[in-house]
């Protein structure tokens, strides 16, 4: 009989949750900080600016949810164009995988809204409350008029920025200019107010209050991004072979003569880290690869007269002294998949016909005998002009000799983005109309834009 090993007694519950210690990121300057500032200005400039850009008399980028139409500059997408959104999301996800495998967490460090807005909020904090040490001192100090002024100004600016962000965000879903005038005349609808406030709250909470805790505790990508990593992925790493044993030393002394490595244990890399980790402990999932520790360490190495790059962008293979392979099967597969999805997306967008024709046969009667010995069939045509311009269309019929169109007699003018339902009647001489005929109705523009759709239907006459 198998012996049963009793379960070990449950470990005494460790302090499972403690209030996270506040991180005061040190302000630094360097290559990667400048790159990140550039990314912040560029991305936030796009976000706050694009909503106000007009295109052919309407808002250039507008995901008009109330009207269920997406305007992307010259292109108008409808709910039935959901395929494009799906493809776009697939391309975005694959690109994330591709760049993660190639260069680590580029997304986290430079492009993620969490990082970008946190950076903006930290700038405001630095402007109102000062440097890292000033901020720590201010937090420890008792409340005073000066502290109230600094903290109050910060909160005021944060709330104003959060509200403007919420307003801009909603401006991508309902026309921003009318949203603005509604806001100024205080006549914003309840649901629009709800969304503006919800997004403002999210901005304030994420970028002002939670910050690095979003990356550490809330972000699923942070947990699974390591699955895309291999030994050839660019990561930010501390060169332990060069740095250890760490220890303080006088400027200008040769560390090896003291039995020390290049790291002087100044903890600048830790102070600069926006998520509050020590990169010297190795690659951690909390690292968002912003490069702040590289800039901080390079500055120190310059002062100490040592070579830069004790902390640097490198790969696992390079650290082990092996060669880094850029072209890996994993990258090629990602690239192929991205290329395929982009190809399908481009092809289907280019061949997209901005016109929909649905033909419904009259349900009441198969056919009618009308004056002049003619047999007539009735239909309902449902037409949607998906283009952002009006078009003049003509209906033609083929597939049955002698069949003519009674109604609609002339051309049909459809305004842009309109859904139209019109009756149609086709007629043929009784002697030619017997039985069931498969016919094709064609709706084509007559203004030279070359848009045409074909729809199969039937013309039914008396049984022969």
């Amino acid at each position, binding site marked *: 009989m198998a012996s049963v*090993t009793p*379960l*070990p007694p449950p470990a005494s*519950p460790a302090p*499972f949750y403690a209030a996270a210690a506040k991180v005061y990121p040190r302000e630094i300057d360097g290559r990667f900080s400048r790159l990140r500032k550039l990314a912040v200005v560029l991305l936030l400039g796009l976000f706050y600016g694009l909503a106000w850009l007009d295109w052919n008399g309407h808002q250039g980028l507008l995901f008009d949810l*109330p009207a269920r139409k997406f305007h992307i500059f010259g292109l108008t997408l409808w709910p039935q164009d959901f395929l494009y*959104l799906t493809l776009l999301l697939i391309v975005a996800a694959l690109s994330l995988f591709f760049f993660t495998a190639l260069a680590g967490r580029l997304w986290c460090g430079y492009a993620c809204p969490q990082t970008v807005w946190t950076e903006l909020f930290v700038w405001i904090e630095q402007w109102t409350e000062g440097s890292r040490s000033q901020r720590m001192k201010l937090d420890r100090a008792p409340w005073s008029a000066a502290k109230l002024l600094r903290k109050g100004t910060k909160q005021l600016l944060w709330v104003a920025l959060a509200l403007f962000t919420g307003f801009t965000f909603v401006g991508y879903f309902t026309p921003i200019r009318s949203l603005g005038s509604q806001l100024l005349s205080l006549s914003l609808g309840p649901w629009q107010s709800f969304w503006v406030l919800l997004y403002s709250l999210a901005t304030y909470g994420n970028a002002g209050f939670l910050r690095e805790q979003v990356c550490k505790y809330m972000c*699923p990508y942070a947990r699974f991004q390591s699955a895309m990593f291999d030994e050839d992925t660019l990561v930010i790493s501390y060169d332990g072979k060069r740095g250890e044993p760490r220890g303080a030393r006088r400027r200008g002394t040769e560390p090896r003569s003291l039995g020390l490595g290049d790291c002087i244990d100044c903890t600048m890399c830790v102070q600069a880290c926006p998520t509050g980790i020590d990169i010297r402990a190795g690659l951690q999932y909390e690292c968002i690869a912003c490069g702040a520790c590289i800039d901080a360490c390079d500055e120190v190495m310059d002062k100490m007269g040592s070579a830069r790059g004790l902390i640097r962008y490198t790969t696992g293979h390079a650290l082990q002294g092996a060669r880094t392979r850029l072209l890996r099967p994993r990258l090629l597969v990602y690239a192929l998949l991205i290329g395929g999805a982009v190809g399908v997306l481009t092809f289907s967008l280019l061949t997209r016909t901005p016109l929909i024709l649905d033909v419904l046969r009259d349900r009441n009667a198969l056919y009618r005998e009308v004056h002049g010995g003619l047999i007539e069939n009735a239909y309902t045509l449902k037409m949607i002009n998906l283009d952002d311009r009006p078009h003049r269309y003509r209906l033609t019929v083929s597939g049955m000799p002698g069949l003519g169109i009674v109604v609609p007699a002339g051309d049909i003018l459809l305004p842009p983005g309109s859904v139209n339902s019109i009756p149609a009647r086709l007629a043929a001489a009784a002697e030619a109309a017997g039985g069931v005929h498969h016919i094709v109705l064609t709706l084509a523009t007559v203004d030279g834009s070359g848009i045409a759709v074909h729809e199969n239907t039937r013309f039914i006459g008396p049984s022969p």
Partner: protein
Amino acid sequence: MPFVRGLDLALVLWPSFLAACGASLLFFAAVDPALLRDAGPRVFAGLEREAGYALGFLFFWAVAAVASALSVYLIRTARTPPAATHAASDER
């Protein structure tokens, strides 16, 4: 494992928020809230599309939050945490 108010609340609300975003996107891409209003019970009469989107989102969030809350509850109230049980069976 004891209940931890702040963390448990976050574990319930946050994943369900993400799920609600995805569900709203998929659902409202296929279904027009105006059609639901016209076909649905009378309490919805007169609501705008915007209201439909917001109510739909809140509904998805609530349903997903119930699922999250159950998951957290089951994990928290197990006599032995699942991780410990697995570790013990792996050793045998």
